[in-house]
């Protein structure tokens, strides 16, 4: 049953990969979407069955076969659904299905073969992502982890004839590889220390040992290595640099992989190993700090970027930072809650930006947009809802989840981190509404601002539009439908986690709580259930939560008003500010020069070292020298020896005769 969930998309991949070139577009798109819907239905049925079990024992397991059996070491290909995995499979297959439907319209101008290639990659991605979240041990998770990395690479470089896209794919792959290296080291360390890779068994083993408070022991090192893997996959400092470049891929891909699902794998991985991480408080602190710093830094960069997708990319990095902050302060439920709401509104925003780009035939620079509200009403309203949700406007989904993170951070005694997160949410509201105002409001702007850095982008599926922006059309039905569904989701998704302070039950936190406990513990004490019940009962905590809520609401409204004032009311103010603080502005526009820094610190030394040391030194001098030297010795030696071969038969006969005489003589006179 569980195996069916990833098997459906895999089937779609096989169909589209084998026969895609011969299938008409409608059919290959329909197959790809249908398998995703099937996967979603199976997921929903599984989750329903899971919900029917008593709270403490919610886990369904299926062992497909024994993968590795080597002496004592036995590893099964096992899938397991617990409350955490349940949330993830619903997100992946549900949002995934929507994005497949959207893609059928978005990619419609691609030629048949490319269209099928696109959908085969997308299906393969979904299959691997589902393996990732369903895997019951580290190695199965790692298979999915690597698989989604591969699909991400393939899809970023989908338009591989464009150099920037091919480079971006390569960058994503290489940067992820660095993280994966640390990740597998962490896995090996855990195995060497605890002798198992199964999540549940690891959790019960680890829960028996005391937390490594104040010391940096094996567990801290292992979790830190795992977290480095997560920074690669989930785009956190120091390995976040690939995500903004990943926007070279088709927009639905950015929505699915680089916003809603794959980049959250790191957050999921920490949630999956919550017991391990909570036993390593030193690592937790690092996770929290990295998350908060990333959130703040990415938000500031997002303020000044001009590419609609790049703003969203930095926003994603920033929101992922908030999720890691939540994980780091031990609020695993809050982090997963934000992951879940973020999947809705960020997918919505990306798909909305895709609709804008689609309508403008490949234009991505917001300085060339403006006034699109009238032309793209559906896109505008859905995008606005998504922006309100991510900004944290009260009673939309982002409000509940972000507020819970802020509350848990403050409640956990991390006032400084809370401040950073609060500033981040202010900035979030500001840059999102800068995007909304510059794209949809104001007057229409053409190409009067050519940008030398990003020439008219995206060879994409679009034909150039010689008559300027003559016919701007709103999203076609398949896209509009998906936008509306996601917009509804962005509004309502948060209501599964209404905090107690607002009279809710925080159902999601209660549902997830057993996943963050060692197995069995939840059944005994009710785990997180009781903990959250306590906060509900404590009026002081409720008051604190309400206060913080007011602060973040004010933040959201304030950010929106700020954006309205600067970029809509007094347009000249934005340019003025940029001139006034030209240093800061250039710093932000160039993304803190991190790419340049990495280039100078890592890429150049490797290139120079490879060229002069490894290529000209080791390869040419030593290896080629040895190979060619062998050849030269043989050639020279045989040049001398070949003179023995005269070609005269009599000479040969003579030497044989002399040889016989010598041998006989030896035996006669010895």
């Amino acid at each position, binding site marked *: 049953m569980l195996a069916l969930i990833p098997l459906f998309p895999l089937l779609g991949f096989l169909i589209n990969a084998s026969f895609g070139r011969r299938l008409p577009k409608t059919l290959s798109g329909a197959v790809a979407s249908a398998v995703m819907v099937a996967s979603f239905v199976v997921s929903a049925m599984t989750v329903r069955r899971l919900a029917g079990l008593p709270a403490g024992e919610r886990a369904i397991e299926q062992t497909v076969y024994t993968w590795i059996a080597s002496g004592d070491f036995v590893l099964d290909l096992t899938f397991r659904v617990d409350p955490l995995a349940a949330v993830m499979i619903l997100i992946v297959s549900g949002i995934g299905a929507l994005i497949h439907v959207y893609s059928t319209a978005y990619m419609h101008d691609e030629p048949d073969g490319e269209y099928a290639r696109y959908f085969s990659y997308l299906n393969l991605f979904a299959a691997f992502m589902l393996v990732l979240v369903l895997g019951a041990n580290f190695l199965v998770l790692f298979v999915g982890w690597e698989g989604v990395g591969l699909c991400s690479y393939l899809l970023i470089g989908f338009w591989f004839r464009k150099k920037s896209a091919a480079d971006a794919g390569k960058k994503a792959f290489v940067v992820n590889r660095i993280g994966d290296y640390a990740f597998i080291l962490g896995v090996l360390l855990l195995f060497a220390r605890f002798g198992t890779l199964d999540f549940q068994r690891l959790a019960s083993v680890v829960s028996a040992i005391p937390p490594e408070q104040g010391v940096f022991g094996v567990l801290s090192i292992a979790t830190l290595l795992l977290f480095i893997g997560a920074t690669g996959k989930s785009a956190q400092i120091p390995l976040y640099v690939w995500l903004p470049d990943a926007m070279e891929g088709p927009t639905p891909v950015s929505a699915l992989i680089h916003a809603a699902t794959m980049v959250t794998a790191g957050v999921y991985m920490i949630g999956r190993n919550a017991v391990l991480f909570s036993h390593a408080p030193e690592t937790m602190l690092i996770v929290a700090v990295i998350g908060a710093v990333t959130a703040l830094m990415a938000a500031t960069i997002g303020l000044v970027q001009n590419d609609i997708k790049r703003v969203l990319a930095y926003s994603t990095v920033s929101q992922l930072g908030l999720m890691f902050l939540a994980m780091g302060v031990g609020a695993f439920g809050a982090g997963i809650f934000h992951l879940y709401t973020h999947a809705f509104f960020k997918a919505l925003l990306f798909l909305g930006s895709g609709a804008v780009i689609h309508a403008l035939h490949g234009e991505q620079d917001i300085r060339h947009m403006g006034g699109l509200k009238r032309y793209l009403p559906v896109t505008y309203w859905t995008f606005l809802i998504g922006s309100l949700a991510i900004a944290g406007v009260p009673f939309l989904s982002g409000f509940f989840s972000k507020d819970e993170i802020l509350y848990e951070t403050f409640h956990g005694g991390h006032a400084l981190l809370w401040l950073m997160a609060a500033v981040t949410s202010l900035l979030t509201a500001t840059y999102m509404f800068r995007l909304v105002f510059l794209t949809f409001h104001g007057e229409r702007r053409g190409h009067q601002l050519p940008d030398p850095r990003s020439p008219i982008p995206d060879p994409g599926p679009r034909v150039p539009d010689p008559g300027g922006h003559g016919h701007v059309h709103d999203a076609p039905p398949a896209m509009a439908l998906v936008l509306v569904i996601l917009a509804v989701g962005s509004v309502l998704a948060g209501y599964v986690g209404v905090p107690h302070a607002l009279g809710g039950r925080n159902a999601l936190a209660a549902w997830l709580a057993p996943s963050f406990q060692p197995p069995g513990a939840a059944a005994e004490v009710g785990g997180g259930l009781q903990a959250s019940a306590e906060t509900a009962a404590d009026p002081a905590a409720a008051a604190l939560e309400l206060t913080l809520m007011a602060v973040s609401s004010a933040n959201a409204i304030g950010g929106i008003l700020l954006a309205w004032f600067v970029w809509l009311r007094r347009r000249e103010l934005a340019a003025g500010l940029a001139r006034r603080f030209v240093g800061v502005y250039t710093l932000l526009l160039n993304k803190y020069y991190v790419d340049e820094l990495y280039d100078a610190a890592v890429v150049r030394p490797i290139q120079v070292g490879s060229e002069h040391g490894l290529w000209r030194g080791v390869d040419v001098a030593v290896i080629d020298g040895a190979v060619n030297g062998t050849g030269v010795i043989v050639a020279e030696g045989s040049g001398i020896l*070949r003179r023995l*071969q005269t*070609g*005269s*038969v*009599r000479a040969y006969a*003579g030497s044989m*005769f002399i040889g016989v005489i010598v041998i006989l003589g030896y035996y006669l006179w010895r």
Partner: protein
Amino acid sequence: MIPLGHYLFVSAVLFAIGTAGVFMRRNLITILLSIEIMLNAVNLSFVAFGRQLGSVDGQIIVLFVMTVAAAEAAVGLAIVIGLYRHRESLNPDAFTLLKW
């Protein structure tokens, strides 16, 4: 009865004559003939030993040697004819192409 030593002496003399012929003559056909003399010298030793030891093994081997010698003569002469057609010469020193 002629003692074994005499046979062996004749055999050795014949073998030496054959060997000398192979090295000294400048005609391929003569060289082939010299090889036949060497083979027959060996044959003589075989039958002499066979008689001395009262076994038929020596005679059997002689039959084999004669068969091989016949085949060798046929092939050898054919090659000689081929070579002659090629070079208009029977001097073995003319045929030294088979080298580096």
